[in-house]
């Protein structure tokens, strides 16, 4: 019973992170119809920028207790940095290809991803050494329910994700910008005829998606303080799983991304706890293939007929 609940807590908290990253994939896919491969690298940079900011401000001292204020500051810095980066990437790499075939945009995205990883690896930037994220949040057990320890980090992760999700939901469905985003996603050409500034909306989408990924990066680094080197396979794998979450939930659908993220987190942790911990990735990708075969539009998406 304890094991079950503990797995549930871990699954939900990591699932929330997957959902947060998946939002970036799903928003970009909804509008531009391509997989932004560089998204997992934005997520990686989110974690690394949090680390660098925390270190630069002298908060890396393990004796010093962290506080919520510091954590929020670092979070905001990472989100700002990655938001700007997302804007630049879209402007320089993707905008020239607005009319190009989707395959070309996909290859460009892979190029951007490789570029970020390998630039990050340069010794005078992030280096090739793994680092340890300072604990900005006190690493304590918040409460114990039926012998299950709920750590403060997990609570912070879940609450932050819920707040960000709520904000995004409000933005997309209740504001003018959100309406423009939905219009562009529905039909770019018609939206531009109706006076929606398509390029600006796409930029905004990238900024939002990237800052959400940065937030996920910060939260991930707080939960798992061991930061791998920028080009390490774990980052790409995490990004890929988040993409799987977006596909499973129904790509282009914001709630679907969150649902998919939770599902992937659960499958990963329950599979690891009850079947074999080494085959985590296998479960996730098998789920992807299964969903694509049975319901290609995702569990919550609506099937789209491709017209000539």
């Amino acid at each position, binding site marked *: 019973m304890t094991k079950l609940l503990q797995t549930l807590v871990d699954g939900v908290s990591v699932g929330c992170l997957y959902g947060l990253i998946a939002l970036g994939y799903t928003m970009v896919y909804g509008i531009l119809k391509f*997989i932004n491969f560089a998204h997992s690298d934005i997520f990686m940079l989110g974690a690394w920028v949090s680390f660098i900011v925390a270190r630069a401000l002298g908060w890396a001292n393990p004796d010093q207790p962290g506080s919520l204020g510091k954590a929020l500051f670092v979070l905001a810095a990472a989100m700002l940095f990655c938001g700007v980066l997302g804007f630049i990437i879209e402007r320089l790499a993707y905008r020239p290809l607005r009319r190009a075939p989707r395959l070309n945009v996909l*290859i*460009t995205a892979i190029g951007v991803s490789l570029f970020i990883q390998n630039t990050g690896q340069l010794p005078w930037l992030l280096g090739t050494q793994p680092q340890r994220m300072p604990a900005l949040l006190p690493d304590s057990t918040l409460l114990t329910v039926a012998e299950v320890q709920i750590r403060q980090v997990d609570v912070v992760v879940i609450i932050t994700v819920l707040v960000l999700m709520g904000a995004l939901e409000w933005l997309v469905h209740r504001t003018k910008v959100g309406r423009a985003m939905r219009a562009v996603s529905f039909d770019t050409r018609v939206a531009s005829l109706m006076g929606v500034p398509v390029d600006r909306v796409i930029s905004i989408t990238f900024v939002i998606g990237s800052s959400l990924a940065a937030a996920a990066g910060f939260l991930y680094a707080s939960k798992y303080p061991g930061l791998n080197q920028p080009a390490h396979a774990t980052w790409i794998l995490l990004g890929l799983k988040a993409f799987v979450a977006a596909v499973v939930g129904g790509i282009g659908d914001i709630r679907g991304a969150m649902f998919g993220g939770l599902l992937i987190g659960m499958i990963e942790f329950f599979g690891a706890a009850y079947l074999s911990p*080494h085959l985590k990735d296998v479960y996730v990708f098998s789920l992807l293939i299964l969903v694509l075969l049975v319901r290609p539009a995702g569990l919550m998406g609506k099937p789209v007929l491709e017209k000539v």
Partner: protein
Amino acid sequence: MAGTTERGRDLQPGRAAATLSSVLPLVIGIAAAYVLHTYVKPRLDPFYAKVLLDIGINVILAVSLSLVNGFTGQFSIGHAGFMAVGGYTAATITYYGSHRLWGNAQFHGGFLSWTQANDLFEGTWLGGGDLLFPLACLAGGLVAAGMGYVVGLPSLRLRGDYLAIVTLGFGEIVRVIIQRTDDVLYDAEEIQQAGLWTCVTHVGGALGFTGLPFYTSLFWTWLFVAITLIVAYRLKESTHGRAFLSIREDEIAAEAMGIVTTSYKVRAFVLSAFFAGVAGSLFAHQVGTTLNPRELGFQKSFDIVIMVVLGGMGSISGSVLAAVVLTVLPEVLRTFSEYRMIVYALLLILMMILRPQGLLGLRELWDAWASRRRPKATGAG
């Protein structure tokens, strides 16, 4: 009706000429590989011989991936997965097969598989290993092709970008499963008693499959390069190749023309996986490499994709050219190795923005030359 048959007959070359023209490239290929092996290699520095080997393997990989990514316009980024499947199959066959046949896994080859590292060279023309190794390569290719069918059949119903993710996921699944296998058996007696399943599951796990005999010589590598090139080129000029290209140009229009797109996509995928498996087998039996799941992750897949994209999507000679350049370049620019991938990444982005079809596009090197001679000739595309 009669008129058409007569005209058809005129267009058909005689049987002898047809046989000759289909066999000739292979003969030339074998001869070239043989010359490379016997005359060129002994005069070369071992380092350059190794580079020649790497070039050969990368050419096979790039051209085979070009069948899917270039010709058919699909986007697979799990090529290293097929390479791993083929490599491990062949390695299992040569390692455990040698034990069964000769009681040890040392080099049992003749002249054709001889690389300078094998001191057990028996001096015969066709030693045991000379027969075992190509068979193992073929088996590796076939198993990889079967895997290509299994992966391709469901996932090729998906649109391009989903396919990319599924192939990437497949590559990862292969890697994880190989990492979970047990250590290689080293005890000769234990191996004699081991069943097939025991052999297949004891391939080294994360540490890699060590103790393999080094059979990959310049002859075998370049022989398979020749076969790959001939198959790819003849395919491009055939009905099948035209079907591939039509899918790449416009899938809906191709379907309207009566091309069963899924079936053709699966064929391209299976063929491409076959050659990836062969390349993996060659890679596994190379001097100085350990067959290791870490080497065959998505980084490797990306390397191959870069070759295909830079060389030209659908150009065989372009892929060859890119494979050669991208194999030699890092050796020349060792001191800039940190910047190598950054330069590749920038090249990839700039290429997509400035010249989306890659360096040569659909054309071949000789097309450019031919069209210069005859300005009115239409291009291959």
